[in-house]
């Protein structure tokens, strides 16, 4: 029953459409919400969709994890290690940027008591 899902084309389609759906959820939140912390969370959701796309597209069935062994020295049946390393970097940087943005929002709220982005007009005049 599940062999249909093991075809590479089906996996690629599901991963692409699913991660793009998640991207749209994040984009919708980014454009329609007014609370600043909700906007940061929407950006985090969009980042997550990109991570899923990157990892899912290089996933191949029947391939093993890229961990070498004295038995498994045949590298032709191993998954590609490059996307994992790239996404590891991206997750850490995304976390750092999110934490810094939230701390800015907290400090702004302490100073002015506002969280709505439409009311943030201190720099406008």
């Amino acid at each position, binding site marked *: 029953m599940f062999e249909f899902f093991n075809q590479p084309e089906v996996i690629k389609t599901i991963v692409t459409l699913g991660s793009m759906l998640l991207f749209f959820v994040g984009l919708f939140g980014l454009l329609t919400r007014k609370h600043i912390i909700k906007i940061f969370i929407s950006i985090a959701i969009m980042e997550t969709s990109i991570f899923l796309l990157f990892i899912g597209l290089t996933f191949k069935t029947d391939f093993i994890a890229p961990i070498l062994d*004295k038995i498994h020295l045949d590298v032709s049946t191993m998954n590609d290690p490059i996307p994992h390393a790239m996404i590891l970097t991206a997750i*850490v*940087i995304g976390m*750092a940027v999110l934490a*810094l943005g939230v701390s800015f929002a*907290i400090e702004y709220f302490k100073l002015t008591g506002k969280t709505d982005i439409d009311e943030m007009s201190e720099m406008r005049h």
Partner: protein
Amino acid sequence: MSVKKISLKRELPTTTLSGFALSGLLVLTILNILLQNMPSKIQTAGDALLKLNATEGVANAVTTVVVFFRGFDTLGEIAVLFIASLGIGLMLHSNSKCNIKAESNFMLQTASKLLFPIILLFGTYVMIYGHLSPGGGFQGGVIIASGVLLLLISHKAFEVPHSVIVALETFAGVSYVLIGLIGLLVLDVFLGNFLPHDISQMGLLLSGGIIPLVYIIVGIKVGSEMSMIVQNLIQRDHDV
């Protein structure tokens, strides 16, 4: 005659529509790229790296890519994390020692005392075995920081000692650069693998030369920085 101001935005959400149009274009572009075949050079890049990976004697290929082939980038990534931690500390640091954390209940207090050593042990295990199994410095550091977060939300008076964090961060940052400079002196390559790394040792704990060493250093730095970020975010002033 007064011109009646018509709010265009109310009738037509232009920002939303243009955003959706742009992202639709992005989706179509990505689908177009994906439906074609990938170039053969991109497909074989991972295989070439995997073949190179065997010469370093490290079992986990992702670790080799992160710490050895992209070691300089990882140093920059650590620097970005440090700058973010510094910015959060500057933003949220307050001299008033008053924090208004609520008193947690008895079960959380008891369970956190029981769980914290186990979380610390598991984080250290993930950190030290990063070159043999899935895991590594970033993951282990974050696990240790989650243990610190558990202590912070369960104990009202608990505070991460600032001097210990400063000492750990300084030690980790200096030793990362020092290992890289020793590699530059010995092998003319920054972060060159100057310790013995033989393929016959692959799979043992002491294998891979400097790679497990660098990942443990990364774990110490990530753990201390994440603990500091968590503590800064959880503390609040009393006038809010």
